[in-house]
């Protein structure tokens, strides 16, 4: 393990984030209008930024660890992450962009005209954001501890400080460029070592990976009482529908100039994600060559970082480990900063601004409130990440997708496509999905795996909470036809009218 080289790599990635973020901040001040600047982002740059933000610690370290441990079943995680983007594109991206809402609570209020639904949506955005931030901090702690021997709290602390600084400075608004750079850092940091390690593996006579027979077999149980087909179907459903409900994903679509631009961006995003996700299976298989059995005290998540040291002892292996550590930090920073930005925005708007306005007698609180929100947004999940025993990076991220799929997906899909949605219906869906997933997660975290069907249903609740939430929305809406917002017809036409027509229409009115 190379202490100095890895420290240099991690420090470089953190510095790049701060410097490029600061540069972008200055750039956006000179540009008179932030939104105009946002709309000049080319589809390719934007796609890199989306890829940079989306590929988190779970993708960089977690998927390889799961493939190492559980075999090819786990391919369905990256496929699901990618497919979620496709669902988002064809079903909701264009109508959401036309709604003019920048965040999910904005959309809820624009569609339903209800402060209460807005408030519940805000709480859910913060909950999903924190659930997603916790594994980023844990991943950072794990990585830094492994490559430098630092105590486990240091890595998460570094990530927390860097993103609080970046978001608090307001730099996140204009750092599309930072996240684009981070995609390419991540891809390079994962691809180059993979290539070198594969060459070393071939030169050493390409020994076959040592795997138990069920590693190749699809849907093999991981233990007694495991229900693999239920687990897989549930995961797949959560990933398909969860992507659209993640707070940091949707906002990126507004940086596109128009519909065709957004579509070009998505095609590129899916290509970038596909290229990236070819690599974790390589590491999973190489891991099986190097470690036929997982050493007792080693987490599956850390397998990627341990392979170079085993295959190429000495300076070469140290260099490769340093690259991987740097890439992993790029993953933690880019995802965490996008999430922190979303959570900060909601905390500032919904919680701090009204309170501060009351204290100061209606004066605008300015940047102070925003900075306070930025600190709150990252400190609480950091503390949580220290309290909660790490569950596995990809598992915790999967839970965030599950909550999003069970709460926001019904609200968005039915909000965009169904005239009969009523205010109590929307509320019922958010509450049913939120409680169902929340209680399942709390039980699993507090009591551990209960085993058998109860354990399976609580550990992967999406397959029952998603239909439950949809059913709650539909049934309650049907029961309360009087509470369908009067503006529904008008709002839906606006959501489904292509921009080109809208443009002509508004000129017609002049």
């Amino acid at each position: 393990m190379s202490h100095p080289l890895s420290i240099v790599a991690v420090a470089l990635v953190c510095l790049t984030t701060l410097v490029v973020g600061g540069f972008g901040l200055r750039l956006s001040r000179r540009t008179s209008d932030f939104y105009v600047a946002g709309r000049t982002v080319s589809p390719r740059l934007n796609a890199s930024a989306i890829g940079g933000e989306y590929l988190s610690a779970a993708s960089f370290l977690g998927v390889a660890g799961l493939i190492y441990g559980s075999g090819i079943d786990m391919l369905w995680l990256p496929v699901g992450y990618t497919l979620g983007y496709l669902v988002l594109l064809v079903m909701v991206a264009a109508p959401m962009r036309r709604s003019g809402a920048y965040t999910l609570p904005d959309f809820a209020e624009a569609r339903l005209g209800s402060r209460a639904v807005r408030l519940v949506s805000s709480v859910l955005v913060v909950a999903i954001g924190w659930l997603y931030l916790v594994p980023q901090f844990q991943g950072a702690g794990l990585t830094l501890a492994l490559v430098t021997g630092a105590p486990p709290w240091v890595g998460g602390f570094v990530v927390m400080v860097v993103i609080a600084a970046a978001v608090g400075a307001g730099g996140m608004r204009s750092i599309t460029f930072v996240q684009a750079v981070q995609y390419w850092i991540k891809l390079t940091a994962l691809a180059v070592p993979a290539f070198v390690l594969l060459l070393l593996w071939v030169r050493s006579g390409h020994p076959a990976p040592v795997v138990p027979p069920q590693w190749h077999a699809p849907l093999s149980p991981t233990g007694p009482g495991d229900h693999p087909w239920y687990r897989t179907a549930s995961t797949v459903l959560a990933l398909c529908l969860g992507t659209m409900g993640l707070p940091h994903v949707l906002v990126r679509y507004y940086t596109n100039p128009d519909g065709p631009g957004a579509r070009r961006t998505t095609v590129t995003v899916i290509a970038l994600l596909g290229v990236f996700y070819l690599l974790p299976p390589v590491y999973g298989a190489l891991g099986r060559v190097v470690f036929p059995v997982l050493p007792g005290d080693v987490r599956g998540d850390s397998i990627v970082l341990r392979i170079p040291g085993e295959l190429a002892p000495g300076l070469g292996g140290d260099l490769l480990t340093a690259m991987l550590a740097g890439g992993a930090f790029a993953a933690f920073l880019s995802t965490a900063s996008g999430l922190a930005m979303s959570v900060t925005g909601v905390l500032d708007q919904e919680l701090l601004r009204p309170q501060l306005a009351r204290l100061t007698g209606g004066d605008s609180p300015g940047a102070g409130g925003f900075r306070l929100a930025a600190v709150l947004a990252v400190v609480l999940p950091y503390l949580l990440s220290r309290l909660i025993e790490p569950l596995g990076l990809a598992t915790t991220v999967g839970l965030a997708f599950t909550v999003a799929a069970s709460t926001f997906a019904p609200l968005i899909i039915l909000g965009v496509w169904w005239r009969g949605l009523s205010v109590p219906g929307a509320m019922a869906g958010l509450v049913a999905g939120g409680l169902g997933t929340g209680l399942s997660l709390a039980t699993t975290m507090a009591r551990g795996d209960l085993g058998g069907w109860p354990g399976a249903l609580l550990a992967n609740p999406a397959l029952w909470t998603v239909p439950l939430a949809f059913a709650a929305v539909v049934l309650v809406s049907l029961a309360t036809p009087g509470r369908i917002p009067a503006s529904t017809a008008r709002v839906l036409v606006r959501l489904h009218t292509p921009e080109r027509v809208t443009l002509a229409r508004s000129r017609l009115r002049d």
Partner: protein
Amino acid sequence: MSTDARTQQEDAYLALQSTDEFQALRKKFRGFVFPMTGFFLTWYFLYVLLSIFAPGFMGRTVGGNITIGLLFGLGQFVTTFAITFIYARWANRELDPMAERLGARLDAQKEG
């Protein structure tokens, strides 16, 4: 924007909705997107179904350590990309010109 202006604009949307061209546009969009979504979700969930009902087939090796299930997984990346690409091309070639024509007609109405 004042409430009046917004209502006025939204009334304009409502008027727009009743035109045949707009209905045709909407029908075209749904006629493509809904079946396609159904197709790719089915294709995606097919893995789970095949694994439940035909585990032998999915676990069969086609050479070395490569099983049909593994090929299925990698193939999903290819199809996801292909579907996205086809959708984007369809929208650019079919949907946008139609919206463009409708927009142009509204422009002409204003000038006329």
